């Protein structure tokens, strides 16, 4: 069980949060203009990296805010957290 530094509340136990899958997948603005394949790419295709991954998390039992987490899935070490809409850290 790890500790997540919520950008709004600070450090809290993992049990207060829920993971929401890969980050930075933007819902298409005009879904009706997409082909089945293009829509399927948005809908189904997700990376599952062993290593540094950009993820969405929500502080369910806290401020209920969504935010992004950079986590190394091989050892659960969190490299960075940042708010929705902010640019991901580059290094």
């Amino acid at each position, binding site marked *: *069980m*790890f*500790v997540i530094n919520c950008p709004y509340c600070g450090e809290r*136990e993992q049990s207060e949060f*829920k993971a*929401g899958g890969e980050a930075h997948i*933007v*819902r298409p603005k*005009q*879904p*009706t203009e*997409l082909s*089945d394949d293009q*829509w*399927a790419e948005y*809908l189904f295709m997700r990376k599952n990296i062993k290593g540094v991954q950009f993820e*969405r998390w*929500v502080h*369910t039992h806290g401020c*209920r*805010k*969504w935010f992004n987490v950079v986590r190394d899935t091989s*050892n*659960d*070490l969190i490299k960075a957290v940042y708010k*929705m*809409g902010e640019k991901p850290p580059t290094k």
Partner: protein
Amino acid sequence: MTKNLRVKTSKFIDETYKISFKFNGTTYYGYKGDTLASALLASGLHLVGRSFKYHRPRGIMTAGSEEPNAIVQLHKNTSRTEPNVRATEIEIYEGLEASSQNCWPSVNFDIGGINNFLSPILPAGFYYKTFMWPASFWEKYEYFIRKSAGLGKSPTEPDPDIYEHKYIHCDVLIIGAGISGIIAAKTAAKNGYKTLLVDEKPYLGGSTIYQNSDHFKINNQISSSWLEKEINEIKKIENLKIKTRTSVAAYHGYNFLLARENLTDHLPLGQRKDKTRQRLLKIRAKKVISATGSLERPLIFNNNDRPGILLSSAVEKYANFYGVACGEKNVLFTNNDSAYETAISLYQKGINIEAVIDNREEIDSKLIKEIEKNNIKVYKGYTVVDTSGYKRINKISIMQLSKDGQKVTGSKISINCDCLGISGGWTPAVHLFTQSGGKLKFRDEDQVFIPNIYPSDQISIGSCNGDFTLNEILSNVPKNLKEFLNIKKTDYENLEVNSSFNKSKRNIWLLPSDKIIGKTKPFVDYQNDATAKDIKLALREGFRSIEHVKRYTTTGMGTDQGKLGNMHALGIISETAGSKMGELGTTTFRPPYTPLTFGTIVGRNVGEYFDIFRKTPIHECHLKNKAEFENVGQWKRAWYYPQNGESMHDAVQRESKAARDSAGILDASTLGKIDIQGTDASEFLNRVYTNAWSKLAIGKCRYGLMLNEDGMVYDDGVTTRLGENHYIMTTTTGGAATVLGKLEDYLQTEWPELDVYLTSVTDHYATVSVCGPNSKKIVSQVIPDLDFSDENFPHMSFKNTKIGKIKCRVMRISFTGEHSYEINVQANYGKSLWEKCMEAGKQFNITPYGTETMHLLRAEKGFIIVGQDTDATMTPIDLQMDWIVSKKKYDFIGKRSLYRSDTIREDRKQLVGLLTENPDEVLEEGAQIVADMNKLPIEMLGHVTSSYYSPNLKKSIALGVVRGGKNMMGQKLIIPMEDKQINVTVADPVFLDKENKRLNA
């Protein structure tokens, strides 16, 4: 005829406090401070159990939690009986009753002992190879294996004891209160860190505290006296908490650790009442210092498992700490200096030592000299090649080791003994470190794995870090602490340390015998009866990975996780396979370090607290009405209200009929309620529901269907427009939390530009639904100020009103197809609202109905229940609800998916009604639906999702999903059951009142 093997008094044992206890039915005595093991040894008893596979007699081997053999069953009482308790850990108390675990019918006569003679045909993997075939025989084998293996008995009644969980946050956690842990605790606490020190034992000071030899001195004091003063000092430090009898079970990432604190297991039974027995500590530490010490290694030689063979360090502890001699004719067998510490302790206490056998040939240290000075024979360069004695060792044979240590030479010498203390050097206890994700490195010089890469803010110090000698500990530990705690100075600079310990060691993983290995029994894992022979066999059969060898031979798979023998297993594998130890890796140590009771894991979450549940504000009324409840999510919902011993069926039939004939009343408080406000609220609803919302007038209600982005139905419910920018949304009972979560997700991540605020108000309102032809008359009495005429208050509309001074929201909406009202009041008025409705409805036989009747009534109308008639593969089109999907809206969640090539397939499963040929035959929910029974394999077209006997239609009705069902109206299908086939006809899912006349009746 028990002996007394107590020697000189020990200050750790209170001889004025005598305790009687029973072991295998016989009464024994011990003193306060004794463990079960030390008290039994004091009575001369070594044989305490049988081994798992061969049922060989086994004795107490250690003096700690690493014990593989002395595993006992505690208590006879069926509710408190506990298996897998280590006799070396349990402190005796008045009334203790324990029995051997691994024996049947008794420890002295053991039927499974026959396996010992059969052992040539019981090699590694025997169980895999033999009992797996033929599969049908397994049941027969299992009976005997289980019975004779004696894995311990579980209690047959609920545990009466109290357990609890506790969270602890600290700056520094120190695991282990040996000399290193004590130094760390004092250093951390004195430098302002909020510190917690835990140790599994009942006392502090580890093995140093009973070390009484002049050969080990700190600042000219015997090490134990020096340490005692340190301990007395740390007990006074304010920001240091000390917990003994507390064993760390698991070390997870981010310095999250679980520990079990034992509070009452050592108390006399009479003093335990109403006290918490064990506590699970959930510790989050900023920094962790592991000072877990090290475990002495056994030596692997032929017949190294007889009762009377103990670790040398255990023999020392029994003598020094408990004042118990493990034997009257003691021999020590070693490959390093540790056994001489034991020898000196025994000698000081006047305990007889026959000889010391040392693998090393050319050795010289002060410790050895002292032993030889006292005329104790030391055989240098020798090894034990065999032992004898069935229930207790009585003789050993020794021979000289060849130069390379692979063979024995010369003639055999026999030595009589009743106790053999063995020492193969020390293994750092790195179990918790590796659990935390730490990586080890192999140190060739003394063949040990030590911590290398730390995954979190932690450090290992002392002998668990490979610093075994007093000199190393006192020079390295303070250095390590300064760096780790970021401090300049400790109290432990410039200590004068005298230690006579010589570090030389002759490491031979498998000691040779004069017999060929096939004729020997060198045990590596005592608990699981795995021998060096088995490991070699596994390698011959092609196993290479240490994890595979472990599973095949079961080495290290007992409750002790092979704490003693794992290193030898690795060593033998590496020697046999010709690979390097460091490259082989180790097996994975998994939590818990020592077994935990279920009670500790569960804590207070038992009985009604096992899973928390929610009650509506009207719950008491349902209890009074003798409702049966069903669990819906976390809610307890009234299921049906049986009267005068009615069956569930009869109750539901009565309730259903009453609701349609006159009036029914339902507690609908559990439905999810989300308050939606903001200038973009309408636009928001347009995007999350399939239908259009912009034109919904204030004061009107609308049913909405919510999809996932994949086009599948996710939730449904009625949403009411309370004001220009204000809606109240209802969700299904089970979906309330996830719907809110999903809406928040879209608002925060996809549409942050929308001005919308969501608030869950599910718990804030109580909701009473009154339905049936007389519902209007009833609610008019309850709310006399409101005009209930159809003109003022038509179906699908809403009124803000008051009952006296109580504000309420009334919706005229219906899930039953009847004329129906839902009244919402502030939650704490729920009960009185219910009572008022019941009072007003008396003359109309108002009938409370539960969820089962609600389901039946809606099924008569063909209304779906999300999660019952849908299963995350159903689109609104599949549900034949095309009418609710807006064609005009540009976008909403899931829209694009509704015309993916897969979702437009004609042969998808679609929701249909089903009528049985025999109107009295009620289908089983979940039953398969087929068309052709003759073509094999039979094609499964779908299944029944809802099925009831309708008292209002006087026939059986059902809903189901059928492949291509939309175009099968009137077609005959078959429901194949175990003993019959039921013929059904596909029908319109709306069975009752297709014209919706009853809504305005």
